[in-house]
């Protein structure tokens, strides 16, 4: 069978999001080839009149039902819940969605306030994930597939204005940084 079909079988059976390298070792292929085949599958699901969607997040893939069929699926399944989201939690989730992986200090800086408690709460609810960066000696935060599923998106890049908001610096900050490199900038 083709690699693409093997990957579809694996994604169908797996209980959790699958990393490229796990898919590669299971199918005994190179990561590069797996990546190309998964991408093909990702586009297949997007193009056709399909009831399934492939989510891509954090370099991991997961098969779910498609957004357009949510109403009929809800009839069959017990209603899923993610509980209440306060405005501060919603803001933190939004910033992590656009800017993740993001360090806690950077999140605090954008919100202008310490976000420890909010992060703890989001971790408990499985909406964000923490990973430790050994080189930077800091924890970084990303959005989980569960939160992406509540958004009904295939990937975070599909969020509105993703390109604009995901950039670490806004244009005027970049311009300012560039200006400060010029000797003339010191004379104001």
């Amino acid at each position, binding site marked *: 069978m083709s690699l693409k079909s093997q990957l579809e079988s694996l994604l169908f059976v797996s209980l959790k999001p699958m990393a490229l390298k796990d898919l590669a070792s299971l199918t005994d292929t190179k990561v590069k080839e797996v990546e190309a085949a998964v991408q093909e599958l990702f586009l297949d699901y997007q193009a056709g009149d399909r009831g399934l969607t492939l989510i891509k997040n954090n370099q991991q893939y997961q098969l779910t039902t498609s957004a357009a069929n949510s109403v009929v699926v809800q009839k069959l399944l017990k209603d899923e819940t993610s509980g209440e989201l*306060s405005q501060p939690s919603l803001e933190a989730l939004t910033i992590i969605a656009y800017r993740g992986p993001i360090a806690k200090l950077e999140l605090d800086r954008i*919100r202008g306030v310490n976000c420890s408690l909010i992060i703890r709460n989001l971790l408990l609810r499985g909406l964000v994930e923490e990973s430790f960066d050994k080189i930077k000696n800091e924890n970084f935060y990303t959005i989980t597939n569960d939160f992406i599923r509540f958004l009904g998106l295939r990937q975070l890049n599909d969020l509105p204005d993703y390109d604009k908001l995901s950039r670490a610096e806004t244009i005027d900050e970049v311009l300012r940084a560039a200006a400060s490199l010029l000797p003339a900038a*010191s004379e104001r």
Partner: protein
Amino acid sequence: MMDFITEKFSGPLGLLLSLIESEEMDITEIALAKIADDYVGYIRSAKNINPEELADFLLIAAKLLFIKSKALLPYLYSAEEEEEINDLEHQLRMYREFVAASQRVKEIINTRHWLYLPPFSNAHNRRSQFNLPVFAPPAKINSGLLRERFLEILGGLEKQLAKNKEEKLLEETLETKISIDDQIIIIKQMLVDKIKVNFSRLLAAAKTKTEIIVNFLAVLELAKQQELIFEQSELFSEIHISRLADK
């Protein structure tokens, strides 16, 4: 269902943004200088500010008062300080963009076009056809190892608890020492006793950055109420504070 709790604002930048927007102003230095008093007035009267966040609220208050004083005495400020003001404007603009984005995210979630997974079941039909073992223990596990692990977990939790207690203690002291109104009374008392006080002496008594800010705010407040006179013989020299002759 995913519910949203609405609050008046979230954090110091949220408060700042709502004050500016309620005046229908854009984010500029002039706007920030204009709302500085409203902001300080709000945090003085607010009862619902989380003690953990108080320091962050006060930090913004100090920045606003700095901007306000610059608007009054522009020649006293350097390019470097100019930069700091730009930073607050920039930070607030960026925050405003994310608040707007968070509203769009909320709308997306509320359309309930959620993506679903099959519910987990141990007797999953996708697996049952493969005759999997129902019991598959890891080879290297024994009761001694479980005990060891459990003790390690307890040790880790104890450390965490101790750290939390320390932080809480810090917050409590912060909370008790932090009221601007109390500080006003203390300063007035000092002035009654001494007639003249050096600003640096006031600050020397402060133990944390937050306390310095509170002192600063208290002094400014007294100045606003026209109860104090400030004297400074030259730039960057000691500031002497004294009471206005009995009103």
